[in-house]
């Protein structure tokens, strides 16, 4: 092939490229005059080549775009390739969005003209806009649902969240988007949320659960749906419902306790109240006829009536404790050593008589919150029990220890080396009213019942461990 043939060939190739290109191609001089043009431009403007050649492109542009096109052309003439997107309606043409490149043609180092290549991106732009609109719509939907919604990618990064998430979790969208969920909420790593989300991911299955977000003290109901992209999480604040449930449970517990009290009350009436009453009735019946033992009969009658009165007084005491239980007295801090000092002073004489000894390991500053009179009564009852039920085999030793409870308040132990009781047999009965586990000396079965009632009314707990002829230990927690 000759050199000229090669040239012709290249010229032909260029023409073919120029004419058959789907993009619009113009060749302009410095003044914007169109020197050459291809078919797509003519089609767009419904003009012939003759209508266009030799005319300034400005003649076909809407007035507001003339300056832009001129400026870009001048930039190209300075030797740089220029690119820009523009929405333009050439006169007599359809509106289009064009991606325009202006490419300078250099001949011997001088820009001799500029090719303008315009690609029709109308459809592309429209679909971009559609996507944008849909994203906006989606955003509006996510914002308008009452649930908090966030999306995670497969690396646990937050890719989206709505304002309910910002509100509930007290986070700022700008600060959290794109960040790893577990670096944002390090306290939750290994917790319920962590396990559930991991399960949703690994099993590829939606999860639905309720969990407590301790940091903000919120109960959240969560649904999480795994997908190719990651995880979509919807949640709402159900704290109120949980609180309602908790108070309902408490109500049920209270009711149960009241019911038990009532049963116990029936028991008291049938045994402890009716016992001395039946005796009094029997004795008074005997007294209707003369009897050589009249004095004894009268004496027993009196004793029975006193017993009756004691039971009634006991019941009064109990009902008073029960009544006060629900009164929202602000619990005052009580220094336990002060109360213990008082009780030990009170018990000093019976303790001396019994030959007992007390070992005390009790920090001076130990405090509990509650009713001082109750705490006094608790200490007094426990100590007098230890004295009353001491072993005949050995000298009484009572050890009282106290230490601060990790969650506030105090934990105390009252331990003695007394006669103890058969715990297997007594079980939970020890704290019941008028239940006795020793035959002598006589106890009414009232003390431990009151101790427990007092402790529970202050929100504390009591437990007992005992072994026959080894001793008894009471474990107290006072808030």
């Amino acid at each position: 092939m000759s050199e000229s043939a090669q040239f012709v060939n290249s010229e032909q190739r260029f023409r073919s490229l120029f004419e058959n290109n789907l993009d619009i191609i113009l060749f302009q001089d410095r003044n914007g005059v169109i020197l050459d043009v291809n078919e797509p431009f003519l089609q767009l403007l419904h003009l012939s080549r003759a209508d266009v050649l030799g005319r300034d492109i400005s003649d076909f542009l809407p007035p507001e775009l003339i300056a832009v096109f001129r400026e870009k052309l001048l930039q190209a003439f300075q030797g740089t390739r220029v690119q820009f997107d523009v929405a333009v309606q050439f006169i007599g043409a359809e509106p289009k969005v064009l991606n325009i490149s202006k490419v300078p043609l250099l001949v011997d180092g001088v820009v001799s003209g500029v090719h303008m290549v315009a690609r029709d991106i109308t459809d592309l732009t429209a679909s971009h806009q559609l996507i944008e609109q849909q994203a906006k719509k989606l955003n509006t939907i996510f914002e308008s649902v009452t649930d908090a919604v966030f999306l995670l990618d497969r690396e646990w990064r937050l890719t989206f969240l709505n304002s309910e998430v910002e509100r509930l979790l007290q986070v700022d969208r700008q600060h959290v988007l794109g960040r790893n969920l577990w670096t944002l909420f390090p306290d939750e790593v290994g917790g319920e949320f962590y396990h559930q989300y991991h399960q949703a991911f690994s099993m590829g299955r939606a999860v639905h659960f309720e969990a407590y977000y301790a940091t903000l003290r919120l109960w959240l109901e969560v649904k999480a749906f795994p997908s190719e992209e990651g995880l979509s999480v919807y949640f709402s604040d159900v704290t109120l419902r949980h609180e309602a449930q908790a108070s309902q449970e408490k109500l049920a517990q209270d009711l149960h306790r009241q019911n038990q009290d009532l049963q116990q009350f029936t028991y008291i009436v049938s045994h402890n109240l009716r016992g001395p009453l039946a005796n009094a009735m029997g004795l008074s019946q005997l007294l209707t006829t003369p009897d050589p033992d009249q004095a004894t009969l009268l004496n027993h009658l009196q004793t029975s009536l006193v017993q009756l009165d004691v039971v009634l007084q006991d019941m009064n005491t109990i009902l008073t404790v029960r009544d006060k239980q629900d009164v929202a007295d602000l619990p005052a801090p009580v220094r336990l050593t002060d109360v213990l000092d008082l009780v030990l002073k009170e018990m000093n004489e019976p303790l001396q008589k019994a030959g007992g000894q007390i070992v005390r390991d009790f920090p001076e500053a130990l405090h509990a919150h509650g009713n001082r009179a109750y705490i006094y009564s608790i200490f007094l009852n426990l100590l007098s029990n230890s004295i009353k039920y001491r072993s005949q085999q050995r000298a009484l030793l009572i050890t009282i220890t106290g230490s601060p409870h990790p969650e506030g308040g105090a934990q105390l132990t009252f331990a003695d080396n007394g006669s103890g009781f058969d715990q297997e047999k007594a079980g939970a009965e020890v704290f019941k009213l008028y239940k006795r586990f020793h035959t002598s000396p006589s106890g009414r079965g009232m003390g431990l019942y009151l101790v427990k009632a007092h402790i529970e009314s202050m929100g504390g707990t009591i437990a007992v461990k005992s072994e026959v002829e080894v001793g008894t230990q009471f474990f107290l927690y006072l808030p």
Partner: protein
Amino acid sequence: MHIVLIDDDYISIFLTTKLLQRENITDSITSFQLPQEAVYYLQNTLPDQVPDVILLDLNMPIMSGWDFLDAIKPFESQLAGRCSIYILTSSLAPSDKLKAEEYSLVTSVIPKPLDGPKLQAIRAQVLENRS
């Protein structure tokens, strides 16, 4: 007629003893404030001596009347037909009456206080059973 009283309440024991004497039912009374001691007593006297009647209280510490009945189960054959057990209780609970029916040795439940007519009824019943 030999009667065994089991009641932790000394006034109740006094009252029952007094009534038994007044109604001329018997002077042969053995009373226990501790049911454990009554069990021990029966262990040692059976089968040579069998009390005709046991009057048993229910509400007692450590060993209740029910516990006592369970404790003497081994001697049931020696007692059956020869000894009538009456539960003597201040309890008004119907559940106690129902529970008593589970024990074949228990003849009936008698609410406290005991009185002359009730004792005479017991005597009549015991004598009738014997004949």
